[in-house]
């Protein structure tokens, strides 16, 4: 905490803020942070693995009578709430249109346009992808950005700073390290299975991404498959093997490049008045792998962002770092 604030104070933004507020720092003398002095004797590595019984340590139910009564009331109210919710939902289901009827409200002019002229306008045989990445490409850009922002938020919450001097954070990083000591490393069954499975997963994911405009799939699902393959490889071979090709630098480069490519490829619709149907990019023959305009490029962008995000989530949850 203090180190981060010192860093901030010496940065240009901190100096500008100090100048702007005339030296007044609202944080000064208002927050009292008492960090108990940690010594080596205080730290017991076994308290990490001693299973916490949350029910008994946090809520002392046996001694506190009011807490017990409120617990009963809580249970009864939750059951009543669940029953009411189930009743309302089942009652509303009766008013839904029947499944698969031709006069349902989903069968309007929008889906008729997508089905009728989707292949001619987008050049994609799989017009689900054509819909996601051509008609509604801007929405998909927002989704990719949401994934990227989610990774950044997880990093803010879970990442341990390597150069941390704060004893509390050092202790937590040490705990995370000892937590990882007990997981099975070099498990022979997992390694033999992943020798067969990981290349297949990678190839299948790349196939899903590259054939997104021809066959079912697309960037999101293919990226998730590749991310799952990366996680399996990491589980079986450990961090030292994956750090050879995937570090935080790789994550930054791939995510940034993919998002910028997507943004540049779709930003022309700003200049055409948000009408990106009138595209001048050749669509090619529908059915060929190099067809359907920008959809292939956009699929690759979305796929790489999703794969990086899945892997980053796993490593950040597991280790607090890449």
């Amino acid at each position, binding site marked *: 905490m203090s180190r981060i604030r010192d860093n901030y104070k010496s940065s240009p933004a901190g100096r500008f803020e100090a100048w702007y507020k005339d030296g007044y720092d609202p944080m000064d003398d208002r927050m009292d942070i008492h960090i108990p002095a940690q010594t080596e004797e205080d730290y017991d590595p076994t308290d990490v*693995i*001693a*299973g*916490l019984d949350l029910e008994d340590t946090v809520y002392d139910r046996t001694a506190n009578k009011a807490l017990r009564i409120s617990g009963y009331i809580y249970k009864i109210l939750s059951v009543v709430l669940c029953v009411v919710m189930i009743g309302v939902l089942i009652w509303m289901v009766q008013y839904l249109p029947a499944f698969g009827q031709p006069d349902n409200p989903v069968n309007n002019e929008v889906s008729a346009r997508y089905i009728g002229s989707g292949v001619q306008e987008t050049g994609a045989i*799989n017009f*689900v*992808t054509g819909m996601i990445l051509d008609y509604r490409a801007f929405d998909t850009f927002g989704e990719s950005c949401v994934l990227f922002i989610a990774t950044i938020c997880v990093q803010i919450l879970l990442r341990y700073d390597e150069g941390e001097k704060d004893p509390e954070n050092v202790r937590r990083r040490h705990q995370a390290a000892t*937590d990882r000591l*007990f997981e099975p490393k070099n498990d022979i069954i997992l390694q033999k299975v992943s020798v067969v499975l990981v290349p297949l997963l990678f190839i299948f994911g790349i196939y*899903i991404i590259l054939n997104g405009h021809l066959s*079912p*799939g*697309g960037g*999101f*699902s293919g990226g*998730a*498959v590749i*991310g*799952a393959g990366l*996680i399996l490889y990491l589980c079986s071979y450990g961090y030292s093997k994956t750090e050879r090709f995937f570090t935080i630098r790789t994550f930054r480069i791939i995510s940034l490049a993919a998002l910028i490519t997507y943004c540049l490829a779709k930003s022309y619709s700003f200049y055409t008045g948000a009408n990106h149907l009138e595209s001048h990019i050749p669509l090619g023959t529908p059915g060929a792998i190099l067809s359907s305009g920008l959809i292939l490029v956009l699929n690759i962008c979305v796929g790489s962002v999703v794969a990086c995000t*899945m892997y980053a*989530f*796993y490593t950040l*949850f*597991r280790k607090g770092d890449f």
Partner: protein
Amino acid sequence: MKIFETFLLIGLIICALSVMFTRRMLTAIVIYMSYSLIMCVIWIILQSPDLAITEAAVGAGVTSILFFVTLKKINGFGGESDNEQDQG
């Protein structure tokens, strides 16, 4: 095909109910994975293979792994056997 579909839907309901009534977190996650797998087959029957692939990869794969990791972080596995495994 109708019988198979009904069978799958009943399986979904059973999975959803047993997630509620199970006591161990680990079992709940495994049941949740099987829920996602059944849902994946139902997506194929409903002729939307796009969703089926995504459901299999995200719902049954990555989400469950993240649940496992979170449970390990908060020591939520519970039970005696897990502690023995940790110390061994």
